[in-house]
């Protein structure tokens, strides 16, 4: 779903209130996973599920995207990044080449904490967004 991935990436990169929170600005937004040793904080988005609706002759896709921020500072910092992601996506209309985005809504909140091999705490905050497009 390259067109939709590109639409989400450009939307997130266009949010200066978000990118100003990240280490690396617009380059700190990654699809699937961040590169090894990427500097924190950063954002990762990935497809969680979904696919074709097959409801009508018009091709429609209903996708779930997991979009989250990672921070080593504290949970609140990850939450602040998540809030900016939410402001850019929830009930907004994405530009998707070849498609019309008719719904983008947050459905699930997910927070997590991991400890890396160096003993550092990494905080994640994000949400699952339902992104629906019509051709």
């Amino acid at each position, binding site marked *: 779903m390259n067109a939709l991935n590109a639409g989400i990436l450009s939307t997130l990169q266009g949010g200066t209130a978000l990118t100003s929170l990240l280490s690396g600005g617009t380059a700190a937004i990654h699809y699937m996973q961040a590169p090894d040793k990427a500097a924190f904080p950063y954002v990762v988005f990935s497809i969680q599920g979904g696919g074709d609706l097959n*409801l*009508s*002759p*018009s091709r*429609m896709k209903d996708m779930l995207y997991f979009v989250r921020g990672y921070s080593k500072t504290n949970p609140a910092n990850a939450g602040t990044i998540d809030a900016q992601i939410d402001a850019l996506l929830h009930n907004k209309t994405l530009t998707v080449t070849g498609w019309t985005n*008719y*719904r983008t809504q947050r459905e699930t909140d997910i927070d997590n904490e991991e400890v890396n091999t160096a003993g550092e705490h990494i905080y994640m905050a994000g949400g699952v967004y339902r992104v629906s497009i*019509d051709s």
Partner: protein
Amino acid sequence: MTAYTGSALDVKWIDSSGTVLLHGDFTVFDYSPSIDLVDQSAGVDTNKTYLTTLKDGKASLTTNFQSGTAVGGTASFSRVYEGASGTVVWSPEGTAAAKPKYTIPAIAMGAVFSYPYAGLVEAKCDFQQNGARVEGTN
């Protein structure tokens, strides 16, 4: 025998302004024929029996309504306002030669809209059959 889905369905509404294709974003199309019955049971009958009288039918189209004034939006559904007269023609397997085609003169009962907050906006229109159904081919 070959089963098939409704994916090739073609539905047209023909009125005095021309022809509108209604199937672009349809999700369900139904047609239900019916017939009036007269109860002829009497006397010592232990089971009801009927005489058949007048044939009838209804068609119904449900579609994902399109925004704006495009085909599939108001351009299509303003034509099937309640009381509009026309003809419904549907071809369940598409319009290739020799595929089945059904035609009914009809009165549109008006588009019924549903606007769910987080779901697709749907329009549904019922058509009251207004004469004989013609079964043919494309």
